[in-house]
């Protein structure tokens, strides 16, 4: 058996992995990435100078950085130290959940487009547009209502405005792709720049807060922001927003799996010719998916304004691009997006904890984060590759014929595979 054939076999087996096997693979990948990361931390620690009593000692050798401490801070620190008593919901754990909430929306935005076979790199731009629209609309609305009623009215209103404007901004590349055959990767990247540029222009002009030196809008009044429930307000996290995020996950899952529109989207995504055959209006589906994808990005923008910042300011963090990673990590599955967003949220929030607690340079922490994501994403990536390869392989056979192997034989082999991975 040649190397190529063996690689093909491995890929084919990966492509056939069951859900349980995939979770096992992901967990193993996570552990492996920590192991490799630990070695990196040790090596880096060996090459740095520090006083002997600052160093930790393993195998009789001194190292300047302690991998156990680093990973302890990265994970447990991000969760607000649940094991060491004195855990408060309003601590680092809130930061993690805050990041998770935004990443859920950004991830869902990318995932929906992916399922329709569209690579939406424009979530960032859609988020920026949604954010500014929300800020301006809510500031206007805040002059009409206030108090508890203000919160009840303005928060949903702000989300709606974010969704509408993000959606409209997503519809642009959708229309361009559907009716002018313009590649969405190019148009969405360009629209990201346009979004940043135009919002900068607006927020440094008409919508600028005259009292502030920064390019930002007038701050939203307290009652026009997400209410804090259970978690306290120090870390700008609102359980209500996370609840909306979970709702969005469930909603998108239902939409894709249980509605005719979702079926159209999924069919268009994996086999456009078959979608066309089944009566799907391809251009309309493209526009609808990108609009919906943009709307989810816009909601992320609304959350950013109404939960975190309390105003719109230029230099929106790159949640939209992180959303691409989250979506790929989740295999573009809405339910997976929840888990991937949490992992990503932990890593983002944990990074700051590591920097506070250790002397490890931020670049090295970035490397550790990258390693974890790379390791967890790779099996999924190779699974997709494997799928493509086995697809073409067996499709050649199907046109070409042959006779099916006895079912018992193939069931036996897959059973063996399961046994191996269990061990």
């Amino acid at each position, binding site marked *: 058996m040649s190397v190529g054939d063996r690689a093909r076999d491995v890929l084919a087996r990966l492509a056939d992995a069951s859900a349980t096997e995939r979770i096992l693979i992901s967990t193993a990948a996570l552990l492996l990435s920590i192991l490799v990361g630990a070695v990196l931390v040790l090596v880096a620690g060996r090459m740095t100078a520090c006083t002997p009593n600052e160093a930790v000692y393993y195998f009789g050798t001194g190292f300047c950085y302690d991998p156990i401490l680093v990973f302890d801070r990265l994970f447990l620190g991000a969760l607000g130290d649940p094991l060491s008593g004195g855990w408060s919901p309003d601590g680092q754990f809130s930061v993690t959940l805050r990041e998770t909430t935004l990443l859920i929306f950004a991830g869902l935005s990318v995932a929906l487009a992916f399922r329709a076979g569209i690579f939406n790199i424009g979530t960032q731009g859609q988020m920026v547009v949604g954010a500014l629209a929300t800020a301006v609309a809510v500031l206007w609305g805040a002059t009409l209502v206030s108090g508890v009623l203000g919160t009840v009215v303005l928060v949903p209103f702000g989300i709606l405005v974010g969704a509408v404007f993000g959606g409209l901004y997503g519809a642009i590349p959708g229309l361009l792709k559907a009716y002018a055959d313009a590649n969405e990767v190019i148009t969405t990247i360009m629209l990201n720049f346009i979004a940043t540029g135009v919002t900068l222009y607006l927020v440094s002009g008409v919508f600028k807060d005259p009292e502030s030196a920064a390019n930002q809008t007038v701050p939203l009044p307290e009652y026009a922001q997400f209410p804090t429930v259970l978690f306290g307000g120090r870390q700008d996290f609102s359980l209500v927003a996370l609840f909306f995020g979970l709702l969005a996950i469930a909603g998108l899952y239902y939409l894709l799996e249980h509605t*005719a529109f979702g079926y159209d989207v999924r069919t268009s995504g994996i086999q456009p010719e078959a979608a*066309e055959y089944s*009566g799907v209006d391809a251009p309309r589906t493209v526009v609808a998916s990108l609009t919906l994808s943009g709307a989810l990005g816009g909601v992320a923008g609304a959350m950013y304004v109404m939960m975190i910042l309390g105003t719109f300011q230029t230099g929106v963090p790159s949640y939209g691009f992180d959303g691409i990673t989250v979506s790929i990590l989740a295999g573009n599955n809405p339910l997976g997006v929840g888990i991937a967003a949490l992992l990503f949220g932990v890593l983002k929030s944990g990074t700051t904890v590591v920097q506070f607690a250790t002397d490890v340079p931020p670049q090295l922490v970035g490397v550790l984060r990258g390693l974890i994501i790379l390791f967890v994403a790779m099996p999924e990536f190779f699974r997709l590759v494997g799928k493509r390869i086995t697809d073409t392989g067996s499709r050649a056979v199907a046109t070409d*014929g*042959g006779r099916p*192997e006895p079912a018992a034989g193939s069931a036996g082999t897959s059973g063996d595979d399961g046994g191996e991975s269990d061990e």
Partner: protein
Amino acid sequence: MATAVHLDGITKRFPGVVANDDVDLAVERGTVHALLGENGAGKTTLMNVLYGLYEPTSGRVLVDEEVRSFDSPRDAIDAGVGMIHQHFMLVDPMTVTENITLGNEPRKWGGLAVDRAAAREAVVELSDRYGFDVDPDARVEDISVGEQQRVEILKALYRGADVLILDEPTAVLTPQEVEELFGVLEELTAQGKTIIFITHKLGEAMRAADDITVLRDGRNVGSVKADETTREDLAELMVGREVLLDVDRPPAETGDVVASVSNVVVDDDRGVRAVDDVSFDVRAGEVFGIAGVDGNGQSELVEALTGLRRPQHGRIEFLGDDVTTDSRRQRIEEGMAYIPEDRQERGLVMDFDLTENALLGSQHSKEFGPNGRIDWPATRAHAEAIIDEYDVRPPDADAISESLSGGNQQKFIVGREFERDPELVVASHPTRGVDVGSIEFIHERLLELRQQGVAILLVSSKLEEVQGLSDRLGVIYEGEFIDVVDPDETTEEELGLLMAGEHPDEDDADVSTDATESGSAEAATGGDRT
């Protein structure tokens, strides 16, 4: 005589499928060897193994009595094995000479430039030696399909091939071009070349080959000398039992016109006219067949009728309404079922399971997708009913379509489309690549629907199929209906000539009335045409 190619116990497995099972094949030098078998018997897979495209799971490949292991076609070419695929690999805008020498051009100026004169000379010398009639300076896009095929053969010879594999070489040729090809093969073997040609047509194997090897279900079921066997024996070897070539077809009881196509003009993807002014009616309770060599506009015509392609001119009526601008979805809802030509591109979503595929085309129907919500339990029950009724194996609604064999995929599509309770069934090559048992089954079902008063449009390149099933038969050639004939009154030879674009009897009055029944529609749309 020496053995040019010897395949020894070749087995090729794909996940879940044995494409070749312990196949032995010995080909004598200087002979034409036909590899005969039905679609899906494993012929192409076996030749792809010989040509280095697939690595066999087990078994040995011997060329000139030497064991060889080919990792790629390049290795095979180096060993003197060339293959001419069904779909030509030629660069259309380039000349014949450029195509033949591509990648192996004679060089001059120390390898810096292509020596065009030498290339042309080599091509002329080569085509003279084998008596090929090709113009070395013609562009490939300007020459006929038959000539393009000769260019492909020259390409292989130029690269030093001694053994030539031809994959279904006659599929795209007219009967006259087929004769020319056989002449070429004779000339090649006379000069010591060895030919292996893959075919599923008995007559061609008998006519052109010295030896015939029959494959069935991936196994070699017999190698015989062409002059020591009969068509009946070969047919029995191919299908494993005696074939009933006659379909029992009760007389048609035709009703109203269900679908009417008038003066339809359709362009293909490249904007080239594919269908030119075609008119016909399909009535309830009849099978209207369209016969023709593949690529004469059938696909475009069917796509225009089913709503996948907008015709340039003309009018399409369905159940008395003008549906020319209706979308595909509207036509499905109006009762048009469609078995597409390409089941793996269009007919099924390969990554979906059978339940999900049972929904394809019905996702917006009241039955399975009321108010935009999919009724999965009902869909699943529907999938199970199709599987049960149409004997789809494995009988598992959760099976991914891709894991099914071609025949079972097709049975599932046929079941899904027939169960739509359609007014019109458009069946495009409904039995292509399907095993014999399933072919009979699909034919029976089609005739059952016809008895129930469903209108059926049948497109097929299998002559016996369209001839056996159709009540009326339109013959299409280069986008035009050459004739509409009564299949029972027409011989296979006559049909062959018609398919080649030759009209035997120009004053056939019967035809014109048949083909353009809706005279007023023609007059109305006639002005549009330029």
